[in-house]
């Protein structure tokens, strides 16, 4: 059989490909810039009225699997008059060549210049992508500052979790959307479509005003921030009539009505995840106090077992993937997770399709689930996140798992054939002492001891993975002070010694940690205000790129930039990070409404300090966090009582329709 391979894809009229292609042999992994994935869509430029460029501001290998971008890409491309293409951060080797040869930031679909699009949507699941945003804007030939842009430039919209506090990038983006994107992008598209049809009256300013008036698109330029003499914010107020005082998050209700991605992107290049991922629910009300994702995505909305089954079937047929990821914030909490896993395992018995649950709470994992996940003989990695080492600190963070639960769960995994389990922890949590962290060593030792006893084998391992805690906006810890990198690093050192204090047990325990310095910078970016934008810009000008990658991240560069820029505002790096905020301080994101009631958050922060635990509103009465009434949403959970039916095996090969034999 021969598999020849030169047919060039047709080159779009406004494509930069002819200029880009000669550069590619000179860079690492050129395939990541080529596009042509299965599931990719290339549309006629001239036939589209609204054109979106969507970006995940990290390397292709991380960005391509991103669900958020894939969903929005598909939702937008389903509209006949809309075109959406994707772009990712280019590595510095290509960036240098692009600058030398005048090649702009391009989309991978049809290799068009990002500047040519109407809307440039950027998805931020982490703040560490901010410098990459600046690279992309600059490479695209778009003015860095939103204020300098003209009608020839796209409207830059930020989305994703980090957009719940877009203030640090307020100078660089034109708008931000809080929350779920499916309906938001459709609404934005409609506004752009109408405005263009009317002949673009009032230019860019009018378009942004129309977006702002929806009350769910935040346009930073229409808000003024005043500061107090001590550097704190005095107030944030609209500077235009009929711009809302607060901007509200979007919530997509009824996930069964939005079964995306239907056509997942299947890349030729290797990426971090090669699986068909389906979200089985959104939101989480476990109420872990450090967890921004849990707080800002309330309430819980389940996708039904039958929709999940249908999506998996179609997604696998389309993609050819052999791993299914059942995604959510705490997958084992789905009301029908047992039936879902056993149903899928049954349906794919005898094939090499495997299932994984990326986020599993210790207390929700059980033998049945373990067995379903390992049915096809393949055991994908198991990770549990107790997050805190001591019972006390777990009460502070409201992660209600006991040590006994954890040991029992891990032993279940070992006796079901897993040899390796990962345990996640955080360091630097509010009220934490050295002792809280050192208890992690005891826990790990006991896990190994119990595992050896239960399996009678020495061939079991666990990995302790620990990172610095970063307080996030819209969480009860938004007021908390961060520990300094020195404190964190010292605790990590003590922990490592404690783990290895018993040589036999220590040998079976891997230790992976993120040191305190990057976390401090994440802390600056997470809770920063508009003044932090100047720091981001300085870092970027000094070469900052790919800050999520330890080999590219430079702590010193951030410290130096902060020291250069912040004093003129009367603040400094510590002011943003290690300083505890008071109840009445105006926080930079107070005008951005995640639905959570600020008084409730404060009360939960006080409860945390008194080690008082908060239950889950799925199983206990509502505790008035504020989200459902203010957002007009409700908890949507099963059980539906339905089951997954056996799939009728398809025999024979799938021939293209109309194929000639």
């Amino acid at each position, binding site marked *: 059989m021969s*598999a*020849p*391979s030169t047919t060039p894809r047709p080159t779009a009229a406004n494509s930069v490909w*002819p200029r880009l292609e000669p550069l590619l042999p000179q860079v690492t992994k050129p395939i990541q810039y080529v596009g042509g994935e299965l599931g990719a869509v290339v549309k006629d430029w001239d036939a589209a009225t609204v054109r979106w460029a969507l970006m995940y501001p990290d390397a292709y290998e991380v960005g391509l699997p991103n669900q958020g971008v894939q969903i929005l890409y598909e939702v937008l491309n389903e509209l006949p008059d809309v075109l959406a293409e994707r772009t990712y951060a280019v590595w510095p080797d290509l960036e240098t060549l692009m600058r030398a040869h005048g090649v702009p930031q391009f989309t991978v679909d049809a290799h068009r210049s990002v500047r040519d699009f109407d809307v440039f949507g950027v998805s931020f699941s982490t703040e560490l992508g901010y410098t990459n945003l600046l690279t992309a804007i600059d490479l695209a030939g778009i003015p860095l500052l939103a204020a300098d842009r003209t009608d020839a430039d796209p409207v830059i919209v930020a989305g994703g979790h980090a957009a719940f506090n877009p203030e640090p990038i307020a100078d660089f983006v034109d708008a931000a959307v809080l929350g779920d994107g499916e309906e938001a992008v459709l609404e934005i598209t409609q506004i752009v479509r109408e405005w263009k049809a009317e002949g673009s009256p009032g230019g860019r300013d009018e378009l942004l005003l129309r977006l702002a008036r929806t009350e769910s698109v935040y346009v930073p330029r229409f808000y003024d921030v005043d500061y107090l003499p001590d550097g704190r914010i005095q107030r944030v107020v609209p500077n235009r009539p009929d711009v809302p005082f607060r901007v509200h998050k979007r919530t997509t209700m009824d996930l069964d009505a939005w079964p995306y991605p239907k056509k997942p992107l299947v890349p*030729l290049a290797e990426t971090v995840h090669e699986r068909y991922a389906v979200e089985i629910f959104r939101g989480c009300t476990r109420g872990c106090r450090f967890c921004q994702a849990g707080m800002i995505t309330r309430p819980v909305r389940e996708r039904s077992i039958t929709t999940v089954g249908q999506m998996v079937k179609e997604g696998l047929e389309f*993609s*050819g993937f052999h791993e299914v990821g059942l995604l959510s914030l705490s997958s084992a909490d789905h009301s029908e997770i047992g039936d879902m896993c056993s149903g899928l395992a049954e349906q794919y018995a005898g094939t090499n399709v495997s299932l994984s649950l990326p986020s599993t709470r210790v207390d929700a994992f059980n033998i049945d689930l373990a067995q379903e996940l390992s049915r096809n003989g393949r055991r994908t990695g198991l990770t549990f996140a107790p997050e805190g080492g001591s019972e006390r600190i777990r009460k502070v963070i409201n992660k209600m798992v006991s040590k006994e639960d954890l040991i029992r769960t891990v032993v279940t995994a070992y006796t079901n054939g897993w040899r390796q389990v990962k345990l996640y922890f955080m360091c630097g949590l509010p009220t934490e002492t050295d002792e809280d962290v050192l208890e992690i060593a005891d826990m790990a030792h006991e896990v190994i001891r119990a595992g050896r006893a239960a399996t009678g084998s020495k061939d079991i391992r666990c990995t302790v993975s620990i990172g610095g805690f970063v307080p996030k906006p819209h969480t009860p810890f938004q007021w908390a002070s961060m520990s300094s990198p020195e404190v964190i690093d010292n605790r990590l050192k003590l922990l490592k010694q404690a783990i290895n204090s018993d040589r036999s047990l220590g040998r079976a325990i891997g230790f992976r940690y993120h040191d305190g310095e990057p976390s401090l910078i994440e802390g600056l970016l997470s809770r920063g205000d508009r003044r932090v934008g100047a720091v981001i810009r300085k870092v970027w000008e000094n070469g900052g790129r790919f800050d999520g990658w330890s080999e590219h991240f430079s702590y010193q560069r951030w410290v130096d930039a902060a020291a250069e820029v912040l004093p003129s505002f009367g603040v400094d790096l510590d002011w943003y990070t290690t300083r505890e905020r008071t109840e009445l301080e105006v926080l930079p994101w107070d005008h951005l409404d995640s639905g959570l009631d600020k008084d409730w958050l404060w009360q939960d922060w006080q409860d945390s300090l008194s080690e008082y635990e908060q239950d889950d509103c799925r199983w206990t009465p509502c505790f008035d966090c504020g989200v459902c009434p203010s957002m007009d949403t409700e908890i949507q959970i099963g059980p539906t009582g339905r089951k997954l039916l056996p799939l009728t095996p398809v025999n024979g090969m799938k021939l293209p329709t109309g*194929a000639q034999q």
Partner: protein
Amino acid sequence: MRFTSHRDFARAFERALRRAGVPVAFSQGFTPHPKISYASAAPTGVASEAEYLEIGLRAEVDPGELRAALDAALSPGLDVLDAVVATGGSLADRIEASRWRIELPEVDPAVLERAVSAFLAADEVRVERMTKQGRRAFDARAAVMSIDVLPAVDPPSGAPAVSCAILEMVVRQVTPSVRPDDVLSGLRAVADLEPPVPPRVIRLAQGTVTAQGAIADPLEADRDGATIG
């Protein structure tokens, strides 16, 4: 498709087998692998019009249907041209040589011509390359059965309209393999040929070598009675 590494291609191919519903045989063992063997895959960055591979199947299928199903399941740019039922003898044994074309933008054909003459005149041309075993030196001359400078044509699409020299050569399959970039290193070694822009390499054919030194279809032996897709 250029820029695809062999690993990328292999993964894409396995997925396409699943999508197409091809009854692939799996190896025994803890992590079963589909039985596929690739014959001398083209290096990354090289386009190819002639790659060959062998698949072990659990059940007999019609080669024409297999070709059509697989072709439809593969990304555009990866096309399946033909499938035949193997009648014995390993595919690898039948791949004796490859024909390559190298386009060298901004290289003067006359300069190239001189470099090629120098190369041909040499008995041995030592070149070095990083291999999995580390840096190795070997002869790039002996494996080259023929090497010709073609008359210049229009520059490749999109490239600036300056001179572009084109080489075509037939290189025997040897160990360690002599790849087009090794021959280019050889031209640099004998005549200081230094292409200013990265060359574009295309594999045109692979197969058995005829008495006349041409390359013959390696699947010829299997073709009797097989459906040609």
